[in-house]
């Protein structure tokens, strides 16, 4: 079993980057989707989407806590205490929630990618991460079911739904690759087993899985690779989000809320 204190500095830093990337993905998508609370297309769906968004925040919380143990910092401070360019989420999560088709497309792209990633991390040599990932995967099953349910329904509907969905998939495709953007210190992570499978292999696996579902809807999708700055590029949309979620937290540094 790997205990935090056993890790050398290089491994620990690489692991911290990895955990931060997953945590920030969950945190940011949780925020965007929580915005649907109260205004989703149907009341029943409103409650479902809110649950999924809350799950993501819950996962982010657990990941920030795990990270906090690695670097000696409080989870809330990691979550709320950075400037906008300090966040390491994939560029897929840089976009505002958009219309319902946009959110459905993004959620599908994210959940499928996350499933592949978590599948690998469930076998991480860092046991706390492996255990946490296992727990997350149990909740993510429902997320996948729900994302697929909506993708199919919009794709199979008449009128404007399939086109809105197709447009959204095409608009998000390039950024979706960045869930698998290379991490700093990835070599160390793979060598030590913290990340049992390299990102580019996970990426290839994911693309192969989603093409058969997405191409009948959106047409042929390019074989794009993740970008090198896929977890560093930020957007105006995210800048807005960041200003919102820090607006109260930053009024009194280290105050208790």
């Amino acid at each position, binding site marked *: 079993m790997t205990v935090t204190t056993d890790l050398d500095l290089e491994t620990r830093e690489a692991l911290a980057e990895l955990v931060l990337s997953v945590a920030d993905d969950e945190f940011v998508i949780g925020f965007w989707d929580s915005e649907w*609370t109260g205004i989703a297309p149907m009341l029943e769906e409103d409650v479902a989407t809110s649950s999924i968004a809350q799950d993501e925040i819950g996962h982010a919380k657990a990941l920030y806590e795990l990270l906090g143990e690695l670097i000696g910092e409080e989870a809330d401070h990691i979550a709320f205490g950075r400037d906008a360019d300090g966040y390491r989420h994939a560029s897929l999560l840089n976009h505002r929630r958009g219309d319902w088709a946009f959110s459905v497309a993004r959620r599908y792209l994210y959940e499928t990618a996350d499933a592949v990633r978590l599948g690998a991390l469930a076998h991480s040599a860092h046991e706390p991460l492996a255990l946490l990932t296992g727990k997350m995967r149990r909740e993510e099953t429902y997320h996948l079911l729900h994302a697929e349910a909506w993708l199919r329904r919009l794709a199979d509907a008449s009128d404007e739904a399939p086109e809105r969905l197709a447009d959204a998939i095409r608009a998000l495709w390039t950024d979706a690759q960045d869930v698998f953007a290379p991490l700093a210190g990835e070599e160390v992570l793979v060598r030590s087993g913290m990340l049992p499978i390299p990102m580019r292999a996970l990426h290839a696996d994911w693309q192969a899985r989603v093409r058969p579902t997405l191409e009948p809807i959106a047409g042929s999708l390019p074989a794009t690779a993740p970008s090198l700055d896929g977890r560093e590029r930020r957007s105006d949309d995210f800048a807005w989000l960041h200003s919102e979620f820090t607006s109260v937290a930053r009024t009194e540094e280290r105050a208790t809320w």
Partner: protein
Amino acid sequence: MTCWQRPSSCARHDGGIARASVLRYPRPQMNDADTIQPLNGRPPYTPGDAAAFYAHVGSGGKVEADDWMPDEYRAAVLKFVEMHANSELMGVLPERDWIMRAPNLRRKLALTSKIQDEVGHAQLLYRVAEDLGKPRTAMLQDLLDGKTKFHNVFHYPTRSWADVGIIAWLVDAAAIVSQQALRDSSYAPYARTMKKICWEESVHIMHGRDVVLTLMNGTDAQRAMVQEALDRWWGPLMQMHGPPTDPAKDKDLHWGIKAKNNEQLRQEFLSIYVPRILELGLTIPDPALRHDEATGRWVYTEPDWAELKAVVTGHGPASQSRLAFRREHYADTQWVRDALLGGATAAA
């Protein structure tokens, strides 16, 4: 006449739960010599006999969705439940802005969860109302068109994180005082829904009180934020249960739709919550507020009933902006409902 005034033509009764098809024979006429088996100590009422129906509900009897009921009673319950449903739906909006601004992970989860519950309550209540004969689309349209009402407190803006605490604690508390009384409503589907809602609201109040307590134990600025929020919300809170009504003329009371009158509810709220507010060192912005030991009642400055009336008829500070917000988002998502539910009648 619209569906909800003529139950026999209502789609709910066509498409609702089927009556047992084995009952091919009409009920035999009962005469005085028959030994009538009372149900729960009360004689059953014959469909069509309004007087017997009102005796039934007036003495604690219950009514289910597909029981016969006088049109007047049906309309009264529908109006009551519809306003309640509207209030839950509009009640989402004051707090919704703060979902994105919640200052830590636990508060973010708790607040999102609370607001999610309010949406859930809207669903539960619209379901109850829909089974009385009015389609959800029609109810939502009437709300957005300003034809039906929602409770006063949801017509006011929120200005700070402290509002989140005050609303979840005190506004929800005032609501729960009414809602607990409704658990005994004569209209059984509503009563059952209220039991679920009350259970869920009890969590909200604890969340609200926790937020307020944390702020009160924090910095001077945080405490000042709470006092300022309380100063703004006290007026609407006092108006929330409505002006005292003449019990003799209150049909909702007689028919068991609600179990307590407005003043009883307000007194109950004050008894529980005034001490809890004062013990935190907060000041209640009503110098006349005190408990009169002789009468056992709270004395207070008469709330501004004109303000209440203006507000619930859509003239509150945030009434129009909130309705406009709802209209915009409802319109934006119409294509989704059409895609899933089909046609121009698709409801949310």
